[in-house]
């Protein structure tokens, strides 16, 4: 084989958008194929897990891992690819912060299964069948990966060298990361690859003093095209979100949702967005503040849309203060 560096790409609990983002490099994807020897990429080529298991440890130069960790299979591949890879990159917001699958941390496995397999209006499940980790069939034991209560980020499961944020990362961010890897011009391990400015810094909208009396949902008003959206009462997380996207959403009239995550040095993305949002409320008393907040449904969902598993609290408390106990049989389950 050639001397080209070896590249692996994997999707764990992922929507597939990050894979499309890689393909979205268009003709530049050929440069990637040119520069790297792709040794594992189940989304687009046929590989088996056994192929990876057969590789020497540290034989993959770079692994781009997207998706959060929410079941035993995700964890199995995270540990396996970590062992086989020199550099592990948490690719996209799911792997970095939990992102969309991580919103499941507002509930838990039992409540989700109850809704999905029993209670939702579109469920047709007269026998009440629920997926089980083990099912006995005449042919033998069928096994499904154990499904976790709490979604985790990649770094909560294995050590991660670099983080590439974005849901999904923009082509320009991916190119920046690939070039940094190829030229060896990487920041210190543990870093986020990207600029440390906020979306506001890159947003061309005119900024004035922000004081708002209520929030609007995007469908309720047509915002002025040149003025800051937050000043007009539209939720925007750009005040506390790392840029790298070029402020794409506010440029087309949609408030930033926060997908590039917290900026350098920020511990809890949601707490920073919360602080910024609180500062624009034109209110003095708790009652006045509450009245404005009645127009902002689901604040936790806004603040932690992309970084709930990665936040300080990580998840919602279980109902009635009941503690989650990992079922001993499952925790001890036989990892293949």
């Amino acid at each position: 084989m050639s001397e080209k560096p070896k590249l692996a790409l994997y999707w764990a609990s992922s929507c597939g958008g990050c894979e499309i983002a890689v393909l979205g490099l268009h003709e530049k994807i050929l440069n990637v194929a040119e520069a790297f020897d792709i040794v594992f990429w189940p989304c687009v080529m046929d590989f088996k897990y056994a192929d990876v298991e057969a590789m020497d440890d540290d034989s993959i130069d770079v692994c781009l891992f997207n998706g959060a960790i929410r079941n035993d299979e995700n964890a199995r591949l995270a540990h396996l690819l970590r062992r086989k890879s020199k550099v592990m990159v948490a690719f996209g917001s799911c792997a970095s912060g939990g992102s969309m699958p991580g919103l499941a941390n507002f509930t838990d496995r039992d409540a989700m299964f109850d809704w999905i397999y029993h209670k939702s209006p579109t469920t047709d499940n007269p026998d009440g069948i629920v997926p089980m980790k083990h099912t006995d069939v005449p042919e033998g034991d069928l096994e499904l990966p154990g499904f976790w209560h709490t979604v985790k980020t990649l770094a909560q499961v294995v050590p991660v060298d670099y983080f590439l944020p974005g849901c999904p990362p923009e082509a320009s961010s991916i190119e920046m990361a690939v070039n940094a890897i190829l030229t060896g011009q990487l920041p210190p391990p543990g870093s986020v690859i990207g600029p440390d400015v906020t979306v506001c810094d890159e947003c061309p909208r005119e900024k004035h003093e922000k004081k708002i009396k209520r929030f609007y949902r995007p469908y309720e008003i047509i915002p002025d095209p040149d003025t800051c959206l937050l000043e007009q009462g539209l939720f925007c997380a750009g005040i506390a979100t790392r840029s790298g996207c070029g402020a794409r959403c506010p440029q087309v009239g949609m408030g930033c949702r926060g997908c590039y995550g917290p900026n350098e040095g920020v511990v809890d993305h949601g707490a920073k967005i919360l602080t910024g949002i609180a500062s624009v409320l034109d209110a003095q008393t708790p009652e006045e503040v509450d009245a404005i907040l009645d127009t902002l449904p689901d604040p936790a969902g806004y603040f932690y849309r992309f970084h709930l598993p990665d936040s300080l609290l990580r998840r919602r408390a279980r109902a009635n203060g009941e503690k989650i106990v990992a079922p001993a049989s499952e925790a001890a389950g036989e990892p293949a």
Partner: protein
Amino acid sequence: MSDNGTFEPVIVGFLCNWCSYRAADLAGTSRMGYPATLRDIRIMCTGRLDPTFVLRALQKGADAVLIMGCHPGQCHYQEGNYKAIRRFVLLRRTLRQMGIDDARVQLHWASAAEGVRFAQTVARVTEEIKALGPLDWPHNWPNEDPYALQEANS
């Protein structure tokens, strides 16, 4: 610590240097009795309170957080406690969605002369948290990763 009879809550207090921290001093020097549940941290103004501090306290195992500062209109930096009100009310709504009872994060005022008010507030919050029981946040997620357990054992 979780037996109902003997549960002594851990309450992290963020106290403004200019008022409530002095109220705490006054309560102490006047030998007023109040429960030894408060772990107080002095901040220069409630406006300095980053919500991250509150989340960190809960994440590290505090049962409650008590924020105390100057009465509205009496902040030494003019506007600090109004900032605190805005953050606090928004944080309270956010924490409700995380399943955390309102009683566990409270904002109160006590001037430097209000030692009694300070002591009574600590006593009242302590009773409320005793009734709620421990929060025990770190136990909300066990290790569910069989491969980590396997690696730890090998």
